[in-house]
């Protein structure tokens, strides 16, 4: 028995020691003959939708079988960051707002650096818009007035600051007004609205921004009750102006992390853009193989048409 336990201990020790030795090995130079490991979000993710739309590989948005079969699927920006820091030979995509402090290399897209300025001036194109849609008809006129005040608030300096603080990208122009400048146009906000519930919903990607905006705006507009029920971009039109607009899940203000389709934009003036969300392709900081990506490279990498880092070059 002693022998057995001794052998067991020996195996454990060698396992731990060799593993530690292995870690040191990985500090070597970047080896271009190695395989590329692709990292992706799961099929329900808005970032994934934005990424594959942006690189013109729409078949893969909802379909993992279109990807190289050895893909690794994770659930958040944070997990992609942790995993890529572990894996020199991985490639992934995250929200631009997560790039800072990630220790990863954010790659230029079509030779344009991923920065906030380039997103705003429109040269960096791996982006998606966050849009809102409001109702066309209201049961209660007070609700209509609050909703309109909210939409106006989104475009003030106050609203835009909140959006930026919550990782949205939007430009504050010199012509933008503060909420104090325009609030007199919305007399409803000086009333006590604490019995009125405003229903927010739509895209889950916009949820963070929407919640921050409503939490900030409610005290400024008579303490209305914001009720958030975010289920996906597809419900934005459906629950404000479409088939479910009078159902139990109806919404007053809905958000979409994609462009509205032609048959959804039927009522002028009921929709618009809130901000831009940029996606950036990231690799491990030791990666010396890629200095720029374009849709073609990314499609080849994600579909498995190229396997090793050498082949890209």
């Amino acid at each position, binding site marked *: *028995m*002693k022998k057995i*336990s001794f052998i*067991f201990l020996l195996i454990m020790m060698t*396992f*731990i020691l*060799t*593993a*530690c*030795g*292995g*870690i*040191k*090995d*990985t500090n070597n130079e970047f080896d271009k003959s*190695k*395989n590329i*490991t692709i*990292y992706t979000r*799961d*099929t*329900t*993710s*808005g970032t994934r939708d934005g990424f594959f739309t942006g690189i013109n590989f729409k078949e893969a948005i*909802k*379909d*993992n*079988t279109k*990807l190289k*079969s*050895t*893909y*690794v*699927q*994770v*659930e958040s920006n944070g*997990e992609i960051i*942790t*995993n*890529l820091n*572990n*894996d020199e*030979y*991985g490639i992934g995509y995250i929200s631009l707002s997560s790039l800072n402090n990630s220790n990863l290399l954010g790659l230029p897209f079509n030779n344009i650096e991923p920065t906030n300025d380039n997103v705003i001036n429109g040269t960096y194109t791996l982006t998606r818009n966050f849009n809102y849609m409001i109702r066309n008809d209201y049961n209660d006129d007070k609700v209509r007035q609050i909703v309109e005040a909210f939409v106006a608030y989104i475009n003030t300096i106050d609203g835009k600051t909140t959006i930026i603080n919550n990782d949205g990208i939007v430009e504050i122009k010199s012509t933008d007004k503060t909420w104090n400048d325009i609030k007199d146009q919305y007399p409803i906000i000086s009333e006590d609205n604490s019995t009125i519930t405003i229903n927010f919903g739509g895209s*889950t990607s916009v949820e963070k921004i929407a919640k921050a905006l409503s939490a900030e705006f409610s005290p400024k507009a008579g303490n209305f009750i914001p009720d958030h029920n975010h*289920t*996906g971009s*597809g*419900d934005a039109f459906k629950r404000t102006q479409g088939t479910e607009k009078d159902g139990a899940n109806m919404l007053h203000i809905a958000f979409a992390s994609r462009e509205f389709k032609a048959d959804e934009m039927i009522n002028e003036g009921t929709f618009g853009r809130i901000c831009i969300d940029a996606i950036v392709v990231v690799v491990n900081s030791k990666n010396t193989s890629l200095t720029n990506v374009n849709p073609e490279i990314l499609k080849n990498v994600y579909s498995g048409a190229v396997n090793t880092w050498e082949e890209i070059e």
Partner: protein
Amino acid sequence: MDYFVRKHINEKQIRKKIIMDKIVKNIFMFITLLCASVILLIILFIAIKGISPFIKDYIINDQKYRVNFYRFISGDTWFVAPNIYGIGFIILNTLYVVFLSLIFAIPSSVLTSLFITKIAKKRLSYILIVIIELLASIPSIVYGVFGIGIITKLVKGLSNLFNYQSAGGISTLTTSLVLAIMIMPTITMLSITSIKAVKQDIENGSLALGATKTQTNFKVVLISAKSGIFAGIILGVGRALGEATAVSMVAGNAGSGPTFNLFATTRTLTSTMLMGLKETTGLDYDIRFSVGIILIFVILITNVILNFIKRKIGRMS
């Protein structure tokens, strides 16, 4: 003498007490039924949601779809748009991962419990028991973070030794190691209890026959305690099969399989349920409940089998 005899028995009082007894009995009955019905409700809810993908039509892109059950249960690819789901390989992967984690966990937890109960000094064993109780109460997300931060690095180093390029250490091996660490406290705690319950006489008898302490520990104490140790293993298997958060962080969630390669990514039933649950609707949402039903069945069947083995082992001596 009068003092010791009850003067008279008040019939009213007795009746009151009997009524009181009945009321209390009914209240207890009601509470028990309430608890039991929660389980029924959960099963009913999961069953209704989980069966609907196979019998109800879902409208996706203006066309009606439902899921083929045979393909679902035997499939080797998780999802092909719009309506082909397969979890056959996921069931195999899950069982494989749990089996591996047991191989890691059982020897170390049984040896630990033996050390704590029979070899360590009182003070030390007390400290060790406190530590193991602490381990048992650590939430799974913490194990997940530990796994993704430390164990992936170890596994990555190991795979480099074998000249195999793993996905930064995200692999079957990592998953089973994380699970092994998670179920070790469970198995250890139950083993400690069952080893403590072994009668001192048996041990003394063995020692009196001339066996050494080590011989006694392995050949007498462990054998006598095997039934309790096995109960611990059954609990551990239950925990390993049901663990979702930590697993989905280190498994890599491969889309097809089954994979038996230690360094390749894998996918378990629980991580499949968890992935994207918060952001999806319709068929893709309901199908996760179908996976839940299958998971419940897998757990039930493994428990029945393990209990059967336990009884067999218990009879052998």
